[in-house]
């Protein structure tokens, strides 16, 4: 009789032990799942942050170029008003290397868009040309370009009077992509 009671008590203990083990396993699995979930979320967040960091670096380079394009189109050395570049002044500046240290960009180019046609500008073919290479840094390969439209103006003699003639152009500022 005692043996029977002992056996049933042992059986009950075994059952409880099994249930407790099952609960522990359940909890462990749950903990692993939660940890894995957080690791995945963390990895996703890190990937996003890394992508954002690259984007931010690119944006910084872009904004630097935008600032420079605004500075160039409004500085008295080139400007003839808002969004207006005096190409006569620009021609004088093309071979002036003394300004190079002021420009922290890859290149500065002015392209005449409308009317089109013509090649690189020099003193012989001006104003029947379309590209003004103001500055080009040596040894750069990887570049992006930011640009803003500008009016390229000069003075011409029309009907005996000096009249301002403006073409449409684009000021291209090149920046390095790291």
């Amino acid at each position, binding site marked *: 009789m005692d043996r029977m009671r002992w056996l049933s008590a042992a059986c009950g203990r075994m059952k409880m032990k099994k249930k407790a083990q099952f609960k522990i396993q359940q909890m462990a699995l749950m903990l692993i799942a939660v940890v894995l979930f957080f690791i995945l979320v963390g990895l996703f967040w890190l990937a996003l942050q890394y992508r954002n960091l690259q984007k931010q670096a690119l944006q910084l380079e872009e904004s630097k170029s935008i600032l420079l394009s605004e500075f160039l189109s409004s500085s008295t050395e080139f400007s003839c008003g808002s969004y*207006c570049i005096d190409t006569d002044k620009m021609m004088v500046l093309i071979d002036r290397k003394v300004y190079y240290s002021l420009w922290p960009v890859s290149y500065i180019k002015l392209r005449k868009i*409308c009317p089109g046609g013509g090649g690189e500008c020099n003193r012989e073919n001006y104003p029947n040309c379309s590209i003004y290479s103001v500055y080009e840094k040596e040894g750069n390969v990887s570049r992006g370009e930011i640009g803003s*439209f500008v009016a390229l103006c000069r003075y011409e003699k029309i009907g005996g009077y000096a009249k301002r003639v403006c073409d449409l152009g684009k000021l291209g500022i090149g920046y390095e992509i790291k």
Partner: protein
Amino acid sequence: MISKKKTRKAQEEMVGFVLIVVLVAIIALIFLGISMRKTTRAEENKEIDSFLASTLLFTTNCRPSADAVYDFKDLIRACLKNERCDELEKACDVLNKTAFNLIENSWKISEESREKAYIFRIYKGEESLVYLAEGKESSKKQGAEIYLPVEGENVYLRMEIFY
């Protein structure tokens, strides 16, 4: 009795789970709604703004006399007054052609390029002087608007580019 208690507990857990799922779904929907609303709004674009501003200075083919050359700004004024550039062409026709030429040369609008479509308008109140459009419009767009005071009234130049 024990079985009833167990069923109730299970039901409560299920209700809790459903509540969490519903809550997460609502939050996701709110975020989705905000991001969708962001894409449909036309953002201001500096490049388009610079295009409109420099267009105003562009010297056009409109030469009403030997010593007079009209820039785009003058051409808008002439169009508003219904003037002519010469015997053959009205100022408004030249304005339309010039605007089209400038856009065609400045923006590469096509299905393959980044810029898929555009709308360009010059208008005064309800009156539209120029309306040019090309390509298939999409929800992602950027634009700019500038105004030009003409005889006490504002003439607006607006351009929207669809990406």
